């Protein structure tokens, strides 16, 4: 596997300009002769499909939802970063670049991150022109808020629904191109596999989720925008249908998978209330500005109501352990501290499976100090949402929170042109590995998805088409029939399962393994346990699982079973990667590598690289490749919050 990132030479500030000039173009009259498949309709997919169609390409866009507007980007709350410096507080493209590289704990490419920061300003312009109703100041100018990991206010937002408004903007651009006949939208279609012809990505095989039909689609290039794999943990803040299948099938067809162990855990989510729990809901971390985090100080107090625990028996562990940052320590530190007190048996709330995995986030002091009205003005919508789900008012009773899986920084490896190790296969948004390193800063996911789709891929895909792409052919090539046959066989195999256990139950069991051994804290012993448990569970899947219904109808259980089969294999790759990366960095915390105070210890000597995995078949271990990371413009430093 060749890992040529194709990074342009020259000074950082000039790389993208220089590269854009050097990229080969496709004649405007020829663009319509190229058919492009875009898989996924979130921020990356919708923006890419719309922009490619505007350029004249012939686009087929696929999504698993009943409408492209429902992709999971819709759920992003906080905002989108851009280096506009509207607040005159010293922001710049360089500062956004630096904050992002540092926030990622120096495990991302400088050139990619700098380009992202450059493009960030154009994204805001584009979205505003589409009619995205960003928050405004009274004078009519755009408003900003501040976000974690930065000391400037550069986050643009639309109430707590920024992802929704940006996605609806991209969706409107997409539907405009549907109306123009330049995009054919295929809803309720799931990509099951990638089709290679002469080593190039030349199509996909999908299941029509209404009729069950498995069919081939040919194109001149394939663009994968299928999001992250957080649902490998079963419980996450991801939507229920979010999955790794499309990306994993590309890996099985030869695309390198980069840094699969890089996972982000968000510290403030609503905890589990029972074994039936189907997903976790995030509460904005802005709540930590006015809430104090605590648990009972001693084991004999566990299980009491919070009002029955006197002040002196409350353990404000963040304030005590991190006196200068207190409740506002960064996401990863806050998450690990919560896990530690719960593992020590001091957790609060409802016991699920014998564990109380929650801590209090208490607003009583702030309400006393500032009054109920001020707190309500700041957090009313969040308090209402909490009350709907948890059934308790945070004005009266402390909130219960616990960390949850939220985002995955790892993904398919791509070069500077967003092309994977398979020629013609481009990967955008959360599905790729680029830009965020080992940890993503808040309000940067929306920025990356739209940067890739609106302003990077539309240039780079032309270069592939005019320099590497060869030959015109459709689904009559035998490669398509062969992949269809393989997928039909896999569907028959799933439907023939004679067990009695719902697939959901097995998925939940996988999630527990991953959370316990490859979650917030990881260590060699635990990862080796997971690497024994996952193949064993994978075997049991084929004897225990039950998949009801047939393959010729709408069958959500068959869809889920296919995704879980891939999660069961992918989980192993994550653990292999986590075991191999014998250092702590960003969201990847190896317990063997920490300071006496519990801070992450990076090992730049041995691990200043991207780990890229190549599939060697189901029965062989994957091959490891490395892309070294070189930092010419920033100095590698230790993050400190003391």
């Amino acid at each position, binding site marked *: 596997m060749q890992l040529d990132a194709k990074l342009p030479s020259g000074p950082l500030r000039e790389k993208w300009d220089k590269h854009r000039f050097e990229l080969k173009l496709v004649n405007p009259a020829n663009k319509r002769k190229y058919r492009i498949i875009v898989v996924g309709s979130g921020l990356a997919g919708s*923006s890419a499909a*719309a*922009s490619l169609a*505007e350029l004249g390409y012939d686009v087929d866009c696929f999504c698993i*939802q*009943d*409408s*492209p507007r*429902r992709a*999971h980007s*819709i*759920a992003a709350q906080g905002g989108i970063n851009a280096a506009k410096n509207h607040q005159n507080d010293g922001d710049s493209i360089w500062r956004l670049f630096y904050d992002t590289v540092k926030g990622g704990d120096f495990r991302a490419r400088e050139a990619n991150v700098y380009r992202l920061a450059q493009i960030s300003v*154009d994204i*805001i*312009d*584009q979205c*505003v*022109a589409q*009619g*995205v*109703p*960003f928050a*405004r100041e*009274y*004078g*009519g100018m*755009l408003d900003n808020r501040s976000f974690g990991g930065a000391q400037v206010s550069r986050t643009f937002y639309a*109430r707590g*629904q920024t992802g*929704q*408004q940006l996605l609806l903007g991209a*969706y409107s651009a997409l*539907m*405009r191109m*549907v*109306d123009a006949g330049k995009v054919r939208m295929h*809803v309720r279609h799931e990509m099951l596999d990638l089709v290679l012809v002469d080593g190039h990505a030349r199509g996909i095989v999908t299941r029509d989720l209404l009729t069950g039909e498995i069919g081939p689609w040919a194109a001149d290039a394939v663009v994968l925008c299928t999001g992250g794999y957080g649902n490998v943990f079963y419980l996450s803040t991801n*939507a*229920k*249908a979010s999955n790794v299948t499309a990306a994993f099938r590309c890996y099985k067809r030869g695309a390198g998978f980069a840094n699969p162990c890089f996972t982000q855990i968000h510290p403030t989510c609503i905890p589990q*209330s*029972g074994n*039936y729990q189907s997903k976790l*809901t995030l509460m904005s971390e802005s709540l930590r500005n006015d809430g104090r985090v605590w648990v009972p100080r001693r084991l004999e107090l566990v299980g009491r109501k919070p009002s029955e625990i006197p002040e002196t028996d409350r353990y404000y562990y963040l304030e005590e352990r991190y006196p200068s940052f207190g409740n506002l320590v960064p996401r990863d530190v806050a998450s690990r501290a919560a896990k530690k007190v719960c593992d020590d048996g001091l957790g609060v709330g*409802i016991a699920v499976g014998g564990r109380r995995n929650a801590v209090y986030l208490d607003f009583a002091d702030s309400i006393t100090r500032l009054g109920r009205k001020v707190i309500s003005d700041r957090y009313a919508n969040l308090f209402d949402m909490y009350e*709907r*789900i948890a059934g308790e008012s945070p004005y009266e009773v402390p909130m219960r929170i616990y960390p949850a899986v939220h985002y995955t920084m790892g993904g398919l490896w791509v070069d500077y042109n967003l092309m994977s190790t398979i020629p013609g296969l481009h990967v955008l948004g959360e599905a790729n590995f680029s830009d965020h390193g080992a940890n993503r800063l808040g309000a940067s996911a929306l920025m990356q998805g739209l940067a890739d789709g*609106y*302003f990077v891929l*539309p240039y780079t895909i032309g270069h592939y088409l005019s320099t590497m792409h060869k030959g015109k052919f459709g689904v009559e090539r035998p490669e398509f029939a062969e992949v269809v046959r393989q997928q039909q066989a896999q569907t028959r195999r799933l439907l023939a399962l004679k067990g*009695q*256990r*719902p697939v*959901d139950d097995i998925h939940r069991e996988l999630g527990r393994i991953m959370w316990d051994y490859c979650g917030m804290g990881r260590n060699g012993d635990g990862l080796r346990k997971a690497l024994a448990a996952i193949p064993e569970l994978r075997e049991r899947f084929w004897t225990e699982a*039950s998949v*009801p219904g047939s393959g010729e*109808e*709408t069958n*959500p*259980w068959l869809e889920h079973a296919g995704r879980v089969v891939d999660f069961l294999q992918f989980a192993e790759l994550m653990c292999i990667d986590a075991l191999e990366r014998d250092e702590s960095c960003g969201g990847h915390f190896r317990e063997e590598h920490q300071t006496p105070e519990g801070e992450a210890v990076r090992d730049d000597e041995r691990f200043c690289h991207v780990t890229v995995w190549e599939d060697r078949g189901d029965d062989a271990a994957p091959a490891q490749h490395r892309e070294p990371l070189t930092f010419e413009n920033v100095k590698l430093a230790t993050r400190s919050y003391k």
Partner: protein
Amino acid sequence: MRLQLHIWRQKNSREPGRLVPYAVQADEHMSFLEMLDVLNAELIRKGEDPIAFDHDCREGICGACSLVIDGVPHGPRAATTTCQIHMREFPDGAEITIEPWRAYAFPVVKDLMVDRSALDRIIAAGGYVSVRTGAAPDANAIPIGKNTAEKAFDYAACIGCGACVAACPNASAMLFVGAKVSHLALLPQGQVERTARASRMIAAMDAESFGGCSNHGECEAVCPKSISLDAIAKLNREFMRAVATGES
């Protein structure tokens, strides 16, 4: 808590459906959809056919979930989607009827799932500002007053779930269409195509066989994002404007 459910079962859009009784043991902390998950797990263990329903984000924003609970789209709690309803809203021993969205323009796909692609086709008929990627002016070049931006947001908050259609005795989609038309008509960016947008979207809405509004207000009552009936008044005004300018 023990519940008695009556759930609409329908194999596909061609065959007739019927209500089927089920009993389930639930927990008051469960969400409504988790209660259905528990029932489905039981059905699968017993080798019976589980119940299909649309859902995805389960946090009230994607607009996928779509159940009529005891005759009310999205169930008993105002300004709340089905996925955010919890079983503590119901008494122990409750008898609950669960049906799909009912509208000619939303054919049932299976059980509780319906086809809402008509809504996408209406958006395709002009529910956008025609601006190419790269053609945008500087974001602050067009000042927009805070109140105008907030009002536009109120309409833009629509999640496209279709509850407004399901609640309306005429199965009208005018709240949905009015929300998009109002969002863009309020903003400077939406002015150039304002009249053409209103008339094209209304024509698309009619072509999908949605009914007209006769002021029942059921749509506003069930809307999980509390979109005001004013959207329909605004839609009518925008349509009159199109007629007056000869663009309809």
